[in-house]
């Protein structure tokens, strides 16, 4: 099984945007991202992953892991062979994540782990194809990626990469929102928000008064971010084939108190709510503005662009960590029973 390969891509910039300033969003230190990767390498090694492909960055994550790899040679815990994908050029943009994930797919990665927030997961998903994706939270608005201990996530990724747990039963296909504006297309894993802002600017959306329309692939009552608004009014689970959309207006009679960003709980006026059926196209009402995908302003549009949003069923294949470890429990994959040396005679000896 020399092809038990896992890819790990980490966004050095996640958890650094303006929400540190306008709210009290957490800072996720570079050192902790590097620590998470090391904890995962330990888990990979423990379950027999042969090779780990790691993204490189100028933010210090890959440098820290590289130093750790050279120190680790003397340790007892077996790490897989680590290969750094020497991305050139490193642009320090989302394209670095796309390039790294593409190279991991080509190199035969059986699972791709992505460290970042919703934005990073969105970008990684766009390049992962049908390779199972495991998104771990190191960002700000974390609806899609899970907040989960990296060691446990690493075990799950490793068990699927080695084939010990078949990917079929351990993954679920996520939904996807596709936005078209003129000849440009973007995707979102959680929500698409139409903002009256004119520019992409500092990217994050934290003032719901600027949002006129909201589209959610899923809306959970306990989410953070804009999808939490519909999570309170018309919850939609990740497994539900449909999504949900609503028009927002500050003066609407129905107001929902929602955690629209970490540290920001505000009333949001909600008008008409409609389900989104897979494949159906929903037009954006505004003539001009900015479209935010998964909480980040990404596309500006004008009257000629006629933007629209469509719910697709063919999102990324997401690794279900609890399902993998439940399967390993059922199959006894992490259990070994040692026979006492010498058998019964020794036991009495």
């Amino acid at each position, binding site marked *: 099984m020399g092809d038990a390969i896992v890819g790990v891509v980490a966004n050095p910039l996640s958890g650094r945007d303006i929400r540190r*300033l306008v709210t009290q969003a957490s*800072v996720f230190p570079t050192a902790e991202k590097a620590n998470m990767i090391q904890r995962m390498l330990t888990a990979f090694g423990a379950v027999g992953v042969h090779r780990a492909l790691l993204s490189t960055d*100028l*933010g210090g994550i890959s440098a820290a892991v590289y130093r750790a790899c050279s120190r680790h040679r003397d340790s007892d815990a077996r790490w897989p062979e680590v290969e750094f994908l020497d991305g050139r050029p490193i642009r320090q943009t989302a394209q670095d994540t796309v390039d790294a994930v593409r190279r991991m797919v080509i190199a035969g990665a059986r699972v791709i782990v992505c460290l970042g927030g919703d934005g990073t997961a969105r970008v990684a998903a766009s390049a992962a194809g049908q390779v199972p994706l495991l998104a771990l939270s190191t960002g700000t608005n974390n609806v899609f990626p899970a907040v989960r201990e990296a060691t446990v996530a690493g075990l799950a990724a490793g068990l699927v990469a080695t084939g010990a747990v078949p990917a079929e039963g351990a993954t679920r296909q996520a939904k996807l929102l596709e936005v078209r504006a003129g000849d440009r297309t973007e995707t979102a894993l959680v929500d698409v928000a139409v903002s009256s802002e004119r520019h992409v600017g*500092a990217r994050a959306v934290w003032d719901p008064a600027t949002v006129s329309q909201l589209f959610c692939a899923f809306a959970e009552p306990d989410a953070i971010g804009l999808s939490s608004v519909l999570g309170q009014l018309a919850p939609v689970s990740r497994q539900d084939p449909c999504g949900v959309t609503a028009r927002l207006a500050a003066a609407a009679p129905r107001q929902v108190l929602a955690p629209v960003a970490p540290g920001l709980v*505000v*009333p949001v006026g909600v008008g008409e709510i409609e389900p989104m059926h897979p494949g159906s196209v929903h037009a954006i009402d505004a003539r001009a503005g900015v479209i935010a995908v998964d909480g980040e302003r990404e596309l500006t549009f004008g009257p000629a662009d006629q933007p629209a949003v469509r719910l697709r069923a063919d999102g990324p294949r997401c690794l279900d960590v609890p399902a993998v470890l439940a399967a390993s429990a059922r199959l006894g994959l992490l259990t070994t029973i040692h026979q006492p040396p010498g058998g019964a005679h020794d036991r009495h000896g």
Partner: protein
Amino acid sequence: MTDTVERKALTKEHLLGVYRVMRTIREFEERVHAEFATGDIPGFVHLYAGEEASAVGVCSNLDERDTIASTHRGHGHCIAKGVDTGEMMAEIYGRRTGSCHGKGGSMHIADLSKGMLGANGIVGGGPPLICGTALAAKIKGTGGVSVAFFGDGASNQGTTLESMNLASVWNLPAIFVAENNGYAESTASTWSVSSDNIADRAAGFGMPGVIVDGFDFFAVHEAASEAIARARGGGGPTLLEMKFTRYFGHFEGDQQTYRAGEVEHARAELDCLKRFAARVTETGELAQADLDAVDAEIAVLIEGDVAAAKAAPLPTEADLLTDVYVRY
């Protein structure tokens, strides 16, 4: 409802204004680059071209109550805070008509009447200054905010780190703008800055730290407006880290053997003026003709500044001891 700033859309006048200032800095620096090569400019010059969105994105949120401290790469900050380009050019040429009467040169251009505390030859020299002016603003209750621009090299200096600590302890209306252009002279920040992101250091001082695309005027303006409003409202200091590339060497004459290809890529793909023009024309906020008119106007302005500077008198022996002592 929220503790964030009620952001007003930038009007056409505002947009034209900020474009004019960014274009002025670019034209000024490109011209100094050309003129320095002729050998007529004494001393050293460190050019700001490529970084305009930082100075203008920040300073377009400031007013006459506010002060800024700059660096050895200070022309852009001076222009963005309203220092006269004619006086600046004369100062660079060492002329008596310069903003410091020709005695300071490029690295010491200052104009206290504009709240510009000075370019500064000392790396990390600016942050302590703004702790002083921010403390004064706080005690006097002027509502003024102080901004220190500094580079990735200065982010490792004790003066900068001590100032961030002091600003946080005293809850000063101070903004620390780390202009991370990737190199401290010729040393890569990826090698020399232990935390890699300068913004990460904010956590250690108990202030927000934010990374900003320094090529994007709108991103800088938005982040700076929030930080400045927070400081004015008594919320304390903020660290903003601009990530971008300088278009010229550390100083004029730098052979730049430590980098290759970055500048060409940045000029072609990331340039703040190009991106600004593309955005505002795409949204219909400004027409290309508006921008072209500004470009033509600025070309004439800088041409006049250079001609006037070259024709201006040098300081005389009698000027040697003027401006040296201050009477309190």
